[in-house]
């Protein structure tokens, strides 16, 4: 394959990937905004992962309980 062809492929590749990432990224931004707005999910509460991090504090969103066989 000639070098010109490789450059062309890389160029188109770069363009479409950037476009894809661009859409994904702003799609994600919008989804976060919407989920917070509609109250489907509160993102801000995750700050408490830091403020409330002693080992005996209750987890914010506990994983499965220890007795379950899943974990």
């Amino acid at each position, binding site marked *: 394959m000639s070098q010109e062809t490789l450059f062309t492929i*890389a160029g188109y590749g*770069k363009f479409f*990937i950037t476009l894809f990432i661009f859409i994904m990224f702003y799609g994600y931004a919008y989804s976060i905004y919407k989920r917070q707005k509609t109250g489907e999910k509160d993102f801000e509460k995750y700050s408490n992962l830091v403020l409330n991090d002693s080992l005996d504090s209750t987890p914010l969103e506990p994983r499965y309980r220890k007795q379950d066989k899943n974990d």
Partner: protein
Amino acid sequence: MFHWLEQRPFFFAVMLFLTVAFAGFIEIIPDFAKASQPVVGKKPSTILQLAGRQVYIKDSCNACHSQLIRPFKAETDRYGMYSLSGEYAYDRPFLWGSKRTGPDLHRVGNYRTTEWHENHMMDPAAVVPGSIMPKYPHMFTNLADIATAYANASTQKAVFGTPYDQKGMPKLGTWKEAKAQALADAKKIASEMKNQQVKDMVAAGKVPEIVALIAYLNSLK
């Protein structure tokens, strides 16, 4: 979809990795195809020159000297013709450097002589008043590692197909032949030097680092 990803460390990591990895490959691959062709007339280094290159690396000359002349008038006026990608085809590793605390050396062989290097490496400020380069007297007593230079060249030949032992190219041969050839080259350099100790060492079959380094610097054209 996004929420799902946020809580699954494995898939999250995969996604992260792909994101990070992809850009590099798409940018590097076309250049790879282009850059590996040597320019016409380019020869791989001889054993002695390679040993000198190893000295250059050992003492990190590349920390202060570049080997990359950019295509600006101010640089071509100062250092000579700008560098071409194909000139580096046999360089493993590359030695472009990233900082010019001292001047560029890519074509230093065109305008400096064995004698100049000999004096300069011993005491740079005596040759160039105001120079901040360290002195390298230890290069006049330390021995160059010709054996590793031979291993270096034969690895290049065996693994990467660097054209040693071909018509018009430097000869490698066996270790014994290569050693004899390197010593013969060293004698030529030493005959242009004035340091008696170095001359004696070479006459006794030993190659000090300075001789190899000068052979390498003279080959930079």
